């Protein structure tokens, strides 16, 4: 395929920023892949990505770029890369990435993000988790007591 021009697509973030990327990179997202298949149009496609801002989208595309060429890397190399990638995302970006991975159907990114958030929750008290997620406690003390009793029972 040397000399053949790479097929490009244009993605538009929710705040109107355009990203021109290779088709094979964009197709890491099943949502985009399906959209391209349905459209049948190969060139100069504009695909709006609702609910995903330009900051988030550029980070998502960084992930897609790496994974589109994943076959060129050793398995542990891509694992190492994933680890660093998700490590450098701050809490806000992490949520936005999760949300984007869900709406754009990027399974690998969703798993990566979910694992990271789970690791933040692990070992924390209910109050610490609420603070981390900015959640309001909507239990009455009586309800809390009841749940506590139920949870004394072992989970496997």
């Amino acid at each position: 395929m040397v000399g053949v021009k790479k097929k490009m697509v244009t993605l538009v973030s929710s705040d109107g920023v355009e990203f021109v990327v290779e088709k094979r990179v964009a197709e890491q997202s099943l949502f985009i892949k399906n959209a391209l298949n349905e459209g049948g149009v190969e060139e100069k496609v504009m695909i709006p990505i609702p609910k995903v801002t330009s900051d988030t989208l550029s980070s998502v595309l960084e992930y897609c770029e790496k994974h589109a060429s994943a076959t060129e890397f050793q398995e542990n190399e891509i694992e190492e890369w994933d680890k660093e990638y998700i490590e450098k995302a701050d809490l806000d970006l992490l949520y936005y990435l999760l949300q984007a991975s869900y709406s754009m159907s990027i399974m690998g990114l969703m798993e990566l993000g979910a694992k990271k958030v789970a690791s933040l929750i692990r070992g924390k008290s209910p109050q610490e988790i609420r603070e981390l997620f900015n959640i309001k406690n909507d239990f009455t003390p009586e309800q809390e007591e009841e749940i506590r009793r139920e949870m004394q029972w072992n989970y496997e």
Partner: protein
Amino acid sequence: MPMDSLLCDELLQEIIQRLPPSSSSSVSLVSKRWLSILRRTTTSLSLPVPNPNPSPSSSPSFSSILSHYPFLSSLTIESNPDDVFRDPPPSADSILLTIAQSGCAPRLTHLRLPLIASISPSALLFSSSFTHLTALHLSCILPLCFRWLTSFPSLKSLSVIQPTNNPFEDSDSPDSPDEDSELVVPLPLETLSLTGIRASDSGLSWLWRRCSNLRKLQLRFCDGTGDGPSSPSFPHCLPGLQSLELRICRRIANRVLLRAADHCTSLTSFTLYDGANRLALHHFITRRGAGLHSLDLRLPLDLDDNHILAIAASHNNLTTLRLKSCCLVTGDGLRSLAGAAIEELALVNCDVVEREPGLLSFLGQSMPMLRSVDLSYNDMVADKEVIAMLISCRALTDIRLRGCERLTDASVFAMIKSFGTRLEFVDLARCPGITIEAIEILVSSACKLREIHVEENKVSVASQSFIWQRGIQVVSSFLD
């Protein structure tokens, strides 16, 4: 910014599913939304025996707790030794019926009720909502009867543990004697594990006649196979068996072995712990030896070289041979297995290992397929013997040397040199001659190591960091 609202239920579910069970209690108390998602993602639950008459204010009832978990597929009711002293004692029947009536019953695939209280066949018969249950674990059915199995159309695996000190010594037969006229519809059961069965248990005949689909049978601490001392229906379950296990069943070992020799035409795996005389063993091996892939024998006092020679002579397909405390077997017997395709060899506490210099080396050289070797509890075996074997076993991935008290670091170094990069499992517990430094070199160089059994005080700080890095499992509590 309320981050919680950014995550839809599906995403929150993905996150909660990735948490260890220890986080469940924290997650449950975060908010109503988190609690309901936690309950929805729970598929496996382990609960204590519920209080028969809970005071309404203090704790939620058993049935209301079950109703919170509509997607359960596996449920265990954990018994507790204190349950015996409860007043009134817990009723296994009412627990079973409560589960049967709960919304999760049709979805359950695994149910374990290792209860102290006994369960009645009629309660089981009425539990007809377990339509997808594939595995059931019960203790103490009184009176012992299996006709209720017709209410469990998907059951593939059944385990029943009868108490050895059964107070109802002469329980009446719940089976009508005229069962010959009854149509025999085979049960879907493929795996059956029975503990504590006696010759006088009469409900077994009905079961054996319907076990034509059985692939795996385990009998433990059984004095009989029910149905009277001669147990005429028992052989009905044998033709399809691929795996037969007899543990501590001395009184029936000979009879079962002879029946198995005649009827178990599909058998590939046989385990015998204790019991069986020379003749029965010999008859069994000559009839079934050729089909066996796995043979595991512990303390059959009469096992000698002739039996091993019979295996070698039977065009054997053995890939696993495990001998424990077989004191009559000598090098002559074991040498006859040379060239065999054995992948797993255990000679645990076998005098021959210490008595015959050069034997281990011979076995190592003549069994090129060996992947797993267990020489545990040969407390007098010397480095020289073990090293001579290890240097020729280049395919080894698993090695167990527990309780080989005379071994020193030299054996560990030979292991590293010969197959260190392939090693996945190693047991060096109770080897006082092996030092903390040798363990350190082992874990640092064995890059595929998954699991090591060794005392905690032999794991240095440097070893610990390798163990963390590579996710190696360390087992430091030894029960036996």
